[in-house]
């Protein structure tokens, strides 16, 4: 479910058939929106066995600050850690800097006398009556949810667990969340923030999901209801109601999962998932067949955002999209974004009141977008207005030709996006040039080839229905549970029995979770650890195959860590001791998935009816405008080859094939572009 549209994809397990639908999101009745989308997709609830759902309800509640009134219960002496945070000032020279705004105000942050130390030993036990009194006061203040954070609960969750029980006994309707249920990793501010966010969105998400389940039931649905998490994995709706923050970034995650499925289908091991929309571009990575993950993120940006410490797909974002504004700043510098025209007023060419040129306007001026081809021709674009704005605001002040200015704007936007794409690879010590670029989202296909060339990427893949690609990702997702447990231990003395016990405990919980309900076709388990050299602060994630533990292969673990460190940071220190910071485990329950549908096979030459005329398109590499053929994507067949320059148009996207590049349609209808090495 998106803000404007609800995408629906239906998969018939028997025939392997896939149906797609799209409907307006009806804010008042989200469930109605989905029901009508399901109907449009030609599917029915009663025959379905599985209902998969990705939703923005949690993230919107957080970003719009429309969540519940919450209280925080925390260790005595630490009620302010949530407000103090990291004390950092990222905008170091800005005297008017802002900080994160806690979701729970100070008057509702309560202290409880208790203490556990870093080894998990209880130093001071707590008084249950004190807890009851504190909670009674919070309830009098009208809270709907309570978050609990006690220091070192990752090492010993007993106090958090018992306090939660006490609250639930007294107030069964309160939404209660204890930090260790979401994160068993050290860093108390991040864990507080995670628990607080969960409490904040919890009551609303729970209401939404319960209503959805009831309506599905009323519509005759009797199967399993699963939700997409930020890991791209699915979890069942009961669990989703408790661990709501795990679904915050489900939309972007689903796009990366779709990319992984596409890669699996066409035999790509390394790819970058590149999603460009109206205001942002996002990048995730498939490396050696696996989606790269991260352990934390900042919701709302680095400078003033709220940290969330849970496993999720590592997706980096830059404020560059079709709506990004081009401006001349003080001093005469040309800038593109991060300010965006958004949906309203939108780019100048939409004719909705926008007056500043955007990336989309530049694409129109260069002929890459067609005046009468936008949204299948449903919306006519105003080229004249776009060109006028470009001339007045950019080209004339900089004494540039309007086309050169428009091209420059695209090049600036492209380099900015290429930095974020490069970032997701170099931060791991990988080389972007060795990856394929899978581009989707409304604007992805328009700019993908330029981004690829900037990064010396040789291959671009535009999947079918790039605008629906994220929705499709849900259908190819698996059940998944992630666990992290901080356990500071020198590798040299770590007990394999203890390691095994800790992993087994996580895996046991994971298997129980994914075996419920849907009943997976198989279960896989991955193990890993955050490790560092003794004395280092930052740890890196190292995947550790189970055999290493079975064989008690301490040196093997060390070698893998050295290798990861070497790749990532350019050096390793094999002679130095390593230590474990946290153990990580992911348990996946495999589900049946739609097969990618093959399209009709054709020859190298595209069918004549796919050719839809031509128009003048500006390419800097050709020195100006060149007459460029346009093709209607739905009529292309597998095996068709098209040499650039060319434009491939479909309902909500246009793919640009640059001069010298060659496009081939693969068996599944993906557009695969070989980028000429310049």
């Amino acid at each position, binding site marked *: 479910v998106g803000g404007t549209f609800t995408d629906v994809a239906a998969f018939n397990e028997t025939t392997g058939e896939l149906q797609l639908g799209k409907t307006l999101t009806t804010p008042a009745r989200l469930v109605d929106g989905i029901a009508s989308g399901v109907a449009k997709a030609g599917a029915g609830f009663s025959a379905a066995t599985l209902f998969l759902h990705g939703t923005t309800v949690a993230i919107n509640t957080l970003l719009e600050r429309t969540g519940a009134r919450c209280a925080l219960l925390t260790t*005595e*002496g*630490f009620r*302010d*850690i949530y*407000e*103090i945070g*990291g*004390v*950092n*000032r990222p*905008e*170091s*020279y*800005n*005297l*008017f*800097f*802002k*900080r994160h705004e806690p979701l729970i105000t*100070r*008057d509702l942050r309560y202290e409880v006398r208790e*203490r556990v130390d*870093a080894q998990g030993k209880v*130093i*001071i036990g707590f008084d249950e009556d004190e807890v009851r009194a504190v909670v009674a006061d919070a309830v009098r203040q009208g809270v709907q949810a309570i978050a609990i954070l006690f*220091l*070192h609960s990752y090492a010993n969750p007993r106090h958090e667990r018992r306090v939660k029980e006490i609250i639930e006994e007294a107030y069964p309707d309160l939404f209660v969340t204890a930090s260790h249920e979401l994160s068993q990793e*050290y*860093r*108390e501010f*991040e864990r507080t923030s995670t628990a607080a966010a969960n409490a904040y969105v919890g009551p609303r998400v729970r209401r939404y999901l319960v209503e959805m389940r009831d309506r599905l039931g009323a519509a005759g649905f009797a199967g399993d209801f699963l939700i997409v998490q930020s890991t791209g994995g699915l979890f069942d709706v009961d669990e989703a109601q408790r661990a709501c923050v795990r679904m915050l970034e489900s939309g972007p995650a689903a796009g990366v999962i779709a990319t992984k499925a596409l890669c699996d289908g066409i035999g790509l091991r390394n790819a970058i998932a590149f999603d460009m929309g109206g205001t942002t571009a996002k990048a995730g990575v498939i490396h050696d067949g696996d989606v790269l993950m991260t352990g934390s993120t900042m919701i709302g940006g680095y400078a003033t955002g709220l940290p969330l410490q849970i496993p999720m797909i590592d997706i980096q974002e830059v404020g560059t999209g079709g709506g990004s504004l081009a401006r001349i*700043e*003080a*001093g*005469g*510098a040309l800038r593109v974004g991060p300010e965006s025209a958004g949906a309203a007023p939108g780019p100048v060419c939409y004719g909705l009141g926008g007056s500043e040129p955007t990336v989309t306007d530049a694409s129109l001026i260069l002929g890459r977008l067609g005046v009468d081809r936008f949204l299948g021709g449903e919306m006519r674009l105003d080229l004249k207005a776009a060109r006028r704005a470009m001339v007045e605001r950019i080209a004339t002040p900089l*004494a*540039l030709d309007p086309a050169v200015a428009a091209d*420059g*704007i695209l090049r*600036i936007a492209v*380099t*900015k996006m290429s*930095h974020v794409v*490069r*970032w997701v690879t170099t*931060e791991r010590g990988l080389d972007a040039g060795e990856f394929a670029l899978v581009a989707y989202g409304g604007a992805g296909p328009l700019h993908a080839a330029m981004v690829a060339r900037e990064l010396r990427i040789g291959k671009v893949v535009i999947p079918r229905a790039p605008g629906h690609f994220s929705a499709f990702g849900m259908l190819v997702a698996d059940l998944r549970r992630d666990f992290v447990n901080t356990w*500071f231990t020198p590798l040299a003395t770590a007990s394999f029995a203890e390691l095994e016990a800790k992993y087994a405990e996580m895996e046991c919980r994971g298997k129980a979770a994914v075996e419920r309900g849907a009943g997976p076709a198989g279960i896989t388990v991955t193990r890993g650890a955050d490790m560092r*050299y003794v*004395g*280092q*602060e*930052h740890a890196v994630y190292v995947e550790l195959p189970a055999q290493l533990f079975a064989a008690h292969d301490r040196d093997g673990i060390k070698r893998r860590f050295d290798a990861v460190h070497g790749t*990532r*940071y*350019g*050096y390793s*220190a094999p002679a*130095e001791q390593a230590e474990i910071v946290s153990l990580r485990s992911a348990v996946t329950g495999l589900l049946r998935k739609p097969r990618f549908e093959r399209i009709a096979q054709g020859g190298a030459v595209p069918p004549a009816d796919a050719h839809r005329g031509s128009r003048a398109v500006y390419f800097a590499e050709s020195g100006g405008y060149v007459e460029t053929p346009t093709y209607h994507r739905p009529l292309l067949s597998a095996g068709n080859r098209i040499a650039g320059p060319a434009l491939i148009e479909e309902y909500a996207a246009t793919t640009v094939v640059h001069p010298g590049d060659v496009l081939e349609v693969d068996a599944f209808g993906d557009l695969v572009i070989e980028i000429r090495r310049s």
Partner: protein
Amino acid sequence: MNAATDRAAMSHGHRPDPVITEIVRNGLIAVTEEMKTNLMRTAYNMIIYEALDFTVGIFDAQGNTASIGLGLPMFIRGMSDTVKAKIAHYGVKNLEPGDVLLTNDAYITGSHLYHMTFTVPIFDDGELVAFSCCMAHWPDVGGTLDGATTDIYSEGLQMPIVKIYRRGEPNEELIAIIKANVRLPERAMGDFRAQVAAVKTGERRFLEMIQKYGRDAVLGGIEAIMNHSEAATRARVREIPDGIYEAESFMDDDGVNIGQRVPIRVRVEVSGDRMKVDLTDVSKQVAGFYNSGETAGRSCCQVAFKCLTSALDLPINDGQFRALDIVLPPGRVVSAQKPAAMRMWMTYPMTVIDTIFKALAPAIPEHIIAGHHADLVVGRVNGRRPQDDSFYIYLGGLIGGGWGAKHDSDGRNATIALNDGDTHNGPTEQVEAKYPLLVERYALRPDSGGPGRYRGGLGTEQIVQARHNIRFNSQMDRVVCKPWGLFGGLAGYGNSVAIHRFAAATEQRFPNGKALNQVLKSGDAYILRSGGGGGFGSPLDRELAAIARDVYCGYVTKGAAEKYYGVVFVPETNEIDIAASESLRAQMRTQGLPHDEPIAEPAVPQPVPHDHAHHEVHEQLTDEERLVLAMSCRCCS
């Protein structure tokens, strides 16, 4: 077209391409960002990783700043001046590809010996085109651990400008000298590797940019970026009314001449599109370790200038400072000369900057802030871990303090002082896992924010218990000279440090903030308290609703609300009696109330309890009993 772009046009014979310039600008930011991340994640010490006490950057062939990543703001000049010193030392013709230049010379970097500064000359096709540079704070460089220093020789290893790598080959003899002179050589070598990797990353990425866009385009782009920055800052200076603006403040003392104030006087002259900052009347260099070099004095002026003219403009580059003139004779406390002690170099410059803002307050009240706590509020601990007797050094504190209020909003609570930027405190859970310490409390200090129409931000308090014997040092300032208010706003609380001995009835206080060479036994605790920010405007003009919220949330106590804000509460409630408050406020206005107390009265020195109050009890307890009992004593105080 302005003068700045004209100059670029002349020097290159053509107009710089605005598109390439913007691409290069984004590229430079990305390069320095990558250097920064690489360093942070590979560093061995918390000072680099959490405190982000480092700076990375790219410099042009003359050593001018092209881009520095956000690290330590007060080091805004440190690397450029160090690169220039290295160029002067060797001469351009004696620099070769593969060289890595190193120094920690305090009088070159302007700071202390902990700042190891690595530089790589970048060659394209045999020609020197730029430098990549990285400074990072090492946890130890030798020297005395505890107490005060009075010259540079007692502060540790001094590494003059050397080639630590010569044409790609490490100089093992120099490395051996470093290892022999630091207490934690393995950690030091970890940071060493991380820094070399960071400067090499900068070199590689910069060369890739040249490969892609061409050398002339990149170098011309850098010049155009500087010219744009210059033009933008000049335009902003032009908006400041011409005039001469002066202000004064002081540091409490230099740690040696106890109680002797150190004057900070600044003079700012604005004329057209130029600003001149004159630090001639800042105190002469001092006997204690609070001196900093000329580079730091110049950094003070540039940081203040950037805050006021180009706060958010990136990358940080020397074009931003062309409109700034600096007058700074040698021998001042921020232009100290050898062998002045420099270990706490960063403390005084923060107050110098705040004083510059104070001077400019009448000119641009909507762009400045009231005084902030202006100290890093650090506690330094060393000891041996009981389980294996291993030696450790822990830089505690960095707890954040209050920032000054502004013309339209309250000051920020609990934020790191001006010297640092994206510096993080260390998580309590990490500290307790790594060191035999227990953090008993980390909280905001109610009433610490200076009262005002807009209230100063709140300082914080951290209480840390020793779980075995440790040595503790804290060298704070701005205990006596509290963060000042502006336009009728009152001062916030000053910083302070105290020790609470096991089961003692009172805290041991340090009136000048210097707690040197203190031995803490298990069960004792040190207490760091950061000051609040100054208020802005009269507290009698603060909206009653805002005060009600402050009291409700506990940021301001009822007593303070009555005394400073003229608020009357309905008896036995937290509810404000509006009519009574209005009349009290009117009365206070006529009486010239509330009184500002910008200078803390020197506390009466207390007898130092040399032995533990309950020594016998202390010895009889188990470790756990002692710990719990110690916490119980403090929590009720």
